[in-house]
């Protein structure tokens, strides 16, 4: 008896889909898992500078508030201390000379932030796996109650 089974293009398509599904499942549950080897757990303390903000924003900051990176939404530490001083802004006098000048109703703030989910590799400090602390960099931050742009100001080594 002659067997008349022949593979057509629909059968081939289904085979390709099945191979894709199997490969995708393998990549998802085996390969990607092996890349997450290092669990960050080194404590890191760092400072964030916020400039020229209003009293209302200062009042919305509290010690113990969780700090989040605006872009990723990840928690990057807990506020341990808040130091607010009258804001200094750049102003120019009639002679054309610049001065750092105290400004009414505006404040500069230094936040000290602690995290236990840090990792240190050489001179690179990383928080929450992906957030690298680069002194001098401006980033958008938020807590549950406030949002502002800040600058990484220092890292305690």
């Amino acid at each position: 008896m002659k067997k008349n089974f022949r593979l057509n293009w629909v059968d081939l398509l289904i085979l390709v889909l099945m191979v894709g599904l199997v490969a995708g499942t393998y990549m998802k549950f085996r390969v990607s898992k092996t890349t997450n080897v290092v669990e960050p757990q080194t404590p890191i303390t760092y400072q964030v500078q916020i400039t020229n903000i209003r009293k209302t924003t200062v009042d919305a900051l509290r010690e113990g508030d969780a700090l989040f990176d605006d872009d990723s939404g990840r928690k990057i530490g807990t506020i341990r201390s808040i130091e607010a001083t009258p804001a200094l802004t750049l102003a120019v006098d009639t002679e054309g000379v610049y001065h750092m000048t105290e400004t009414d109703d505006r404040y500069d703030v230094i936040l000290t932030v602690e995290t236990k989910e840090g990792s240190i590799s050489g001179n690179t400090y990383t928080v929450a796996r992906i957030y690298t602390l680069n002194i001098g960099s401006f980033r958008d931050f938020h807590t549950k109650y406030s949002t502002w742009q800040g600058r990484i100001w220092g890292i305690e080594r």
Partner: protein
Amino acid sequence: MKHERKSTWRPNLFDLVIVALGAAVMAVIVLVMRPAAANISETVPMEYTVELQNMPEGAWELVNTGDMLYDNIRNQAMGTVVAVDHAPYTRPIANASATHVYQSPVPNAENVILTLRTNMTVTDSSLVSEGGYIVRVGGAVAGKGPCYAGTGFVIGITREGE
């Protein structure tokens, strides 16, 4: 003479594969489309304050308690007005010797300060109004009411339990 045609269809391997794939796709669709699990922690009535800046003088008199304020960009309900106030609109300016920067009032302009009440969805990282507006002090506001609109910032939130 009438011939009766006998059905010769029998399920083969690929028919079974197609049925299995169809079932898998349906299962995925059901999983994706089902309502989100109760990840939302709680909804509590809260008040917060927004300041619409550089409004025409006297604009605050157009605001009535009970007005619903909407986000003018995403059309999200921000809350119901429960109190209205106004304050001078100021801009920073240095004195001639640049030894001090003052907040100088701008003529014919003022800030309209609105206290809003809404049922807020509270999570670990955010407060979200009933309409989906994320409320944080310092956050930009583009608000519109029945006959007024303006831009400014959130300037205060009453924390839960305070």
